[in-house]
């Protein structure tokens, strides 16, 4: 049965290479960094997710690997041997938390072996490994002098106050330490009690997990490529699963013999089967046939198919749609993805209503399959937003227009929002002129004046014309633009 993560503390293993770090580092930094890369590579062979805590020190969760390799001591010896093959000496510490494990690795010294606090604690014969047994971490930490803390000023102060060991510090109430020493005190108090400041941030390895298949001779038909895609997808899934990973999206790259390439990202989320990936390859090839670039079909057949996992993350099971979000049925998803295959990922959008002062901002569009979040907060008040009816037509790009008065002169707005004359005629682009029957404005809007790039100053109007329609017009830099239409 799987141990409950809450009841059992983490076991952290720290590998420390004295020649690469600390006061007795024997190598210059760039050289040490290169060597340390290779050390991490060696350690990754035992556990895929390793965090490099500092130059020369790396850490990982030891519970799983230790069970696999037959115990923490055995695992540690194997790692030391593997690192020694690179010509680097190393020490290993294991404890119930990162801080204690770091200290244990520092204490593990074959030249000057210290007794583990717990006499039952199995110190390695070589002395290069110090394993603090589960539950023994508090005792181990209590015996450490406060000088092990990174903050030497604070350590000196604690010592002068008569708190010689971490145990003395841990015995004090947390609230008293916090009120006397502030955040720094609270942090070291947590450390002294064996609580880590943060969880281990191990990144998945940067292995190339992509899979590819070359077609020689190039394959002129789609069907065999789709068939090969299924096998490739199985390989891709197996490669990811072997490392406990999954990908958010998968990129399908098809290269034709004449060098043309088609590349599309497909939502994966670890939910697609091999057949599902093959379907997407088929759609991508179909879409290509439906909309060939420049009206030409690629000649010579398909030379290469490559599947690249994008945004590789730990496999933690998948999350269903959050409350309030309509669950997209398979039928709709299939239709949307087929259109995406034809026109591209960004061609199929789902609208999200949000806040904003301008009609064009109030609805944002998110490509199908991505997370829908409004760009501007809905709840904010947005003063200056035009009240009343919403326009049925919102131009993605404002249309050029001209508004003139009775005498045919262009209507202008001064910086203080004074109108030169009442607007009488509206000409939009090359359309015939319309007579303005009613109007309102100007409403000034000066947005984001603090940001020169996004700053906008304009005056807005609503105009009703004799054809029964109404328009939302803005004056910006003395030019009239039509942003939206009401009909």
């Amino acid at each position, binding site marked *: 049965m799987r141990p409950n993560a809450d009841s059992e503390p983490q076991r952290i293993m720290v590998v420390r290479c004295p020649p690469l770090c600390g006061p007795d580092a024997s190598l210059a930094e760039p050289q040490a960094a290169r060597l340390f890369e290779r050390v991490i590579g060696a350690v990754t062979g035992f556990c895929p997710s390793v965090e490099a805590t500092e130059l020369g020190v790396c850490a990982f969760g030891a519970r799983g690997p230790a069970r696999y390799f037959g115990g923490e001591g055995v695992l540690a010896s194997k790692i030391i041997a593997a690192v020694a093959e690179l010509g680097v000496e190393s020490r290993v510490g294991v404890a119930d938390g990162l801080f204690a494990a770091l200290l244990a690795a520092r204490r593990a010294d074959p030249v000057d072996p210290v007794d583990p606090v717990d006499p039952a604690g199995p110190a390695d014969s070589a002395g290069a490994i110090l394993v603090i047994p589960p539950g023994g971490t508090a005792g181990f930490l209590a015996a450490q002098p406060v000088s092990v803390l990174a903050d030497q000023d604070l350590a000196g102060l604690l010592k002068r106050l008569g708190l010689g060991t971490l145990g003395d510090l841990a015995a004090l109430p947390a609230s008293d330490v916090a009120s006397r020493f502030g955040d720094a005190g609270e942090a070291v108090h947590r450390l002294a009690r064996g609580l880590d400041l943060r969880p281990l941030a191990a990144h998945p390895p940067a292995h190339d997990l992509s899979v590819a298949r070359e077609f020689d001779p190039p394959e002129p038909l789609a069907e065999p490529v789709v068939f090969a895609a299924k096998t490739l997808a199985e390989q891709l899934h197996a490669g990811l699963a072997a490392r406990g990973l999954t990908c958010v999206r998968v990129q399908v790259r098809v290269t034709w013999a004449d060098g043309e390439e088609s590349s599309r990202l497909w939502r994966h989320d670890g939910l697609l089967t091999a057949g599902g990936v093959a379907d997407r390859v088929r759609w991508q090839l179909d879409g290509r046939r*439906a*909309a060939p670039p420049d009206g030409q079909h690629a000649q010579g057949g398909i030379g290469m198919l490559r599947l690249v996992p994008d945004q590789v993350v730990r496999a933690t099971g998948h999350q269903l749609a959050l409350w309030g*979000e*309509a669950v997209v*049925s398979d*039928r*709709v*998803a*299939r*239709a*949307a993805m*087929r*259109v995406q295959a*034809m*026109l591209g990922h960004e*061609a*199929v*959008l*789902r*609208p*999200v*209503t949000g806040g904003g002062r301008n*009609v064009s901002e*109030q*609805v944002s*569009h998110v490509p*199908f399959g991505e997370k829908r979040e409004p760009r501007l907060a809905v709840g904010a008040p947005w003063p200056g937003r*035009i*009240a*009343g*009816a*919403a*326009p*049925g*037509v*919102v*131009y*993605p790009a404002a249309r050029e227009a001209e508004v003139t008065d009775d005498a045919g002169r262009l209507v202008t707005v001064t910086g203080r929002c004074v109108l030169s004359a*009442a607007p009488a005629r509206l000409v939009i682009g090359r359309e015939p002129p319309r*007579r303005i*029957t*009613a*109007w*309102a*404005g100007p409403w000034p809007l000066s947005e984001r004046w603090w940001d020169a790039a996004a700053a906008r100053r304009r005056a807005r109007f*609503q105009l*009703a014309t*004799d*054809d*029964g*329609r*109404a328009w939302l017009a803005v004056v910006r830099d003395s030019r009239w633009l039509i942003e*939206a239409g*009401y*009909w």
Partner: protein
Amino acid sequence: MLPALPALRDLLPRGGLARGSVLAVPEFGLLCLALAAGASAAGAWCGIAGVPEAGLAAAVGTGLDVERTLLVPDPGPAWPQVVASLLDGCELVLLRPPVTAPVLLRRRLEAVLRRAGGVLLVAGDWPGAQVHLRVITQRWTGLGDGHGRVRACCAEVTADGRGEASLTRTRWLWLPAEDGGVAVADPVDIPVTRTPPGLRAVSAG
């Protein structure tokens, strides 16, 4: 049969959007969005193709559910395939064809439509459409001479077509009403001042 907004039921044969049928409105506008809103509010997925300027805030006011809306703003030259694909997933597709579709293409899409059991709402010309709707007259209220706000629009909408829709029906609607929805206009609200020279019936919807 897909449901329509209550205010629009009188205009449509049998009070709804018949599955497998094409409805045409000469020009894109709030009327198109209102026709889609009834079905969308009742749970249908709605695809909007070729209309990048669709005012979705207004559409939401009439009842369209953006959670179940797909937009393909620019279907490009492959628009017939895009519409056919959308019809596989959406019960209602609102389309503005970039060009008037040739008769063969229309027949093919109508066949796809009947097979899928959806409704195609065309903002543009579609000679074989079962129902043609358009706004004959409209007038916005709320704007004065330098003051006010656009509030609501009183519109005269007419519908005719083939078969059971061949009888021409005309209704006065608030499109939109002050609350953003669509309502049947009271006879007292209807602008009677049709005589002034400035106000004339226009054919554009």
